[in-house]
């Protein structure tokens, strides 16, 4: 009986250790690791998407108000700013998760 009990304890310890390992290996972030090309492409997609959205809004507003590129220029500038904001947020999230991991 004692033998069974100790085997069960050993098994539950093993399961706990595996569960811990699994939890620590699961990453919340889906961004690629920093320092490789993937990270650069990731930031680029964040920047580029904001720029394109700004461009589209500018073109749309120009069409509605029949202005010649006024909104386009304004919203391209906003798009660039939003692009930098996206990149900054990605960087911030990455650092936060890195610190959290180190804290664990």
């Amino acid at each position, binding site marked *: 009986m004692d033998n069974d009990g100790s085997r069960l304890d050993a098994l539950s310890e093993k399961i706990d250790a595996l569960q811990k390992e699994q939890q620590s290996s699961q990453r919340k972030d889906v961004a690629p690791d920093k320092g490789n090309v993937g990270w650069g492409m990731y930031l680029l997609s*964040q920047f580029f*998407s*904001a720029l394109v959205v700004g461009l589209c809004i500018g073109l749309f507003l120009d069409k509605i108000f029949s202005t010649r590129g006024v909104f386009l220029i304004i919203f391209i500038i906003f798009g660039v700013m939003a692009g930098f*904001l996206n990149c900054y947020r990605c960087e911030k999230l990455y650092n936060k998760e890195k610190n959290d991991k180190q804290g664990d």
Partner: protein
Amino acid sequence: MEDPIEQFEVKPIWELKVGGVDLSFTNSSLFMVVAVVTALVFLYFATRKRSVIPGTSQSFAETLYNFVDGILMENVGPEGKKYFPFVFSVFLFVALGNIIGCIPYTFTYTSHASVVGGIAVFSLLMNIVLGIKKKGMGWLRTFLPHGTPVIAAPIIVPIEIISFLSKPFSLTVRLVANMMVGHIMLKVIAGFVVSLKAFGFVPLAFICILVLFEAGIAFLQAYIFTVLTCIYLNEAIHEH
């Protein structure tokens, strides 16, 4: 060598026009139906017996379920459970689209921004609807971060709106670009197999490895898409 872009061309199978709107059943539609039917048939047969000790197919179905459930729990928490059917459907649709696309002579519908963008925009709309449902018109305050001076609002609000709207776009670009680049590369290298004649076995061996990588990327992209959908859900549920 054949045009490597030709594989992404949408061709109608059954032409149908209703009131000037093209509603043709295309090769893209066909493979979407194939993906949905594959998922339905597999899940139906895999979970039919519901045995305590699962067989191979039931085990695989359960692993898929646990995998998506894990993503949802990790990124949204227990409140996200009621959105599981949506997230699971998105995952299966994208994953099957990517994986079916790796089979020669098939069509990768996830290489089209209209398909992926549609799902991404749907996730964003869900975020907006949930946010408004929870906070009413106060949801609009998310575009003015806490502590921002009112005088800065005319600059901050458009930037925040653009940043918010760019999320599905960035998601779409990443998935579409990954799928397109992979498939174009496969097609270009496949072209070398014939043109290199006796040495054609070198690109052939290379292509075998690349197909494996492509299958891995197919799954990884579906995972990324699902995680980001969950992040939108999390924002809608917790941060508004």
